[in-house]
């Protein structure tokens, strides 16, 4: 009698323990996981801030201490040797800069007017206005037209080998169906970008003979020449690019202006050198 009562008594706490532990397991696991995720998110934020601070410090380090640092003429001598026997179009010399900007800052954009351009800048103009069309043609636009151009592009008859496109506001409605064709190529005229204006003369003057550039994921890459260009021509182009990039950093809408980090010069098949920019 005694024994059985003991067993009943001992069972009770055991079963309650089991239930309790089970309940505890279910309830705590989710809480534990949630806490972990919160911590790692905070840590991620901290890590990102740390990485950005490190990038800012690295960008400010003097480039002359880098083992790949070279003056431009020596770098060009190497690049010309590396590109020996390649066709001119397959050996472009490019200058790339690390851009360290604030989180969420817009990409660095602008236009460079090269003393020795790599290729002719072809401008496309959409307008129904005869006066504006005349102005565009006089300023050197490659192709000027209205509705008939829109139709040609829709049907895929017109090869879009243009670098820039402009339009007058009267064409806005007709251009809307072309957004998917022109947009990815950066050729869609837009009032916000300044490529749609009633007075084309003012916008075209700054556009013909200039090359646009845009920062892509922290890197700004600009083609400055071909291996057939002389040293002086390439250095002049690099100076023009440097000036344009520095102007772009001052006009950007950001709390702090972005820092131009180390700059590299390279060619299609050649090695890379750090240079002063």
């Amino acid at each position, binding site marked *: 009698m005694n024994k059985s009562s003991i067993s009943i008594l001992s069972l009770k706490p055991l079963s309650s323990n089991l239930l309790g532990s089970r309940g505890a397991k279910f309830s705590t696991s989710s809480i534990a996981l949630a806490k972990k995720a919160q911590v790692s998110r905070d840590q991620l934020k901290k890590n990102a801030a740390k990485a950005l601070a490190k990038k800012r410090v690295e960008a400010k380090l003097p480039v002359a201490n880098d*083992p*790949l*640092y070279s003056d431009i003429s020596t770098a060009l*001598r*190497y690049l010309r040797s590396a590109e*020996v026997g390649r066709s001119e179009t397959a050996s472009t010399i490019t200058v790339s800069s690390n851009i360290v900007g604030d989180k969420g800052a817009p990409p660095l954009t602008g236009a460079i007017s090269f003393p020795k351009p790599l290729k002719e800048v072809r401008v496309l103009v959409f307008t129904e206005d005869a006066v504006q069309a005349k102005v565009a043609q006089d300023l050197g636009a490659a192709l000027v037209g209205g509705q008939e151009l829109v139709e040609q592009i829709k049907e895929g008859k017109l090869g879009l080998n243009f670098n820039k496109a402009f339009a007058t506001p009267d064409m806005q409605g007709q251009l809307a169906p072309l957004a998917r064709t022109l947009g990815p190529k950066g050729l869609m005229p837009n009032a916000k970008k300044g490529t749609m204006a009633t007075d084309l003369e003012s916008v075209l003057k700054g556009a013909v003979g200039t090359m646009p550039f845009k920062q892509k994921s922290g890197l700004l890459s600009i083609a400055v020449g071909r291996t057939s260009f002389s040293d002086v021509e390439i250095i002049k182009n690099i100076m023009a690019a440097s000036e344009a990039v520095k102007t772009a950093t001052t006009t950007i809408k950001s709390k702090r202006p972005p820092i131009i980090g180390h700059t*590299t010069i390279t060619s299609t098949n*050649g090695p890379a050198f750090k240079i002063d920019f």
Partner: protein
Amino acid sequence: MSAGRATRNLTHILSISSPSNKASIIKLPPLITDVSLTFKKKNSDGHMGIRKFWQNYLPTIKFYNQSLPMNVTRITLNEIDTKKARGVKDLPVDSEEAKKLESDIKLLAKCPAKITISYQGGKSVELDCKWKRSEIILEEFTKLTKAVPVAEEEIFKFGESQ
């Protein structure tokens, strides 16, 4: 820049100005006005050596002879090459197509692999490079052009002179 990329870059730079094989560090005589290489894009018919010569030695030769124009013409006969790969045996014997392919292959085998060296006054010399290894081509090229090795103190050492 990561350490791996920087090392790779330095290796590439040093392979141009001071490669381990010093034989390509040569100065060509000023009488030479142009050096042209002609070969196929595909390696077959003994065209591999000259392609390797272009890849391994020509950048160094160009580095020490900056003002000398050097051209490379790579001949593409893709259609014939792919047909050749497919093989004549797959075609019916004595068919028009088989005959044409055979003649095309013969034509392809005739494609030269050569270096043309032009001198002042319009004279030019050719160096046949078919079925030759790149080192042999370099040796023969140095001999033919009477090129002289660059003095040890004139060899450009990247990172030391700046």
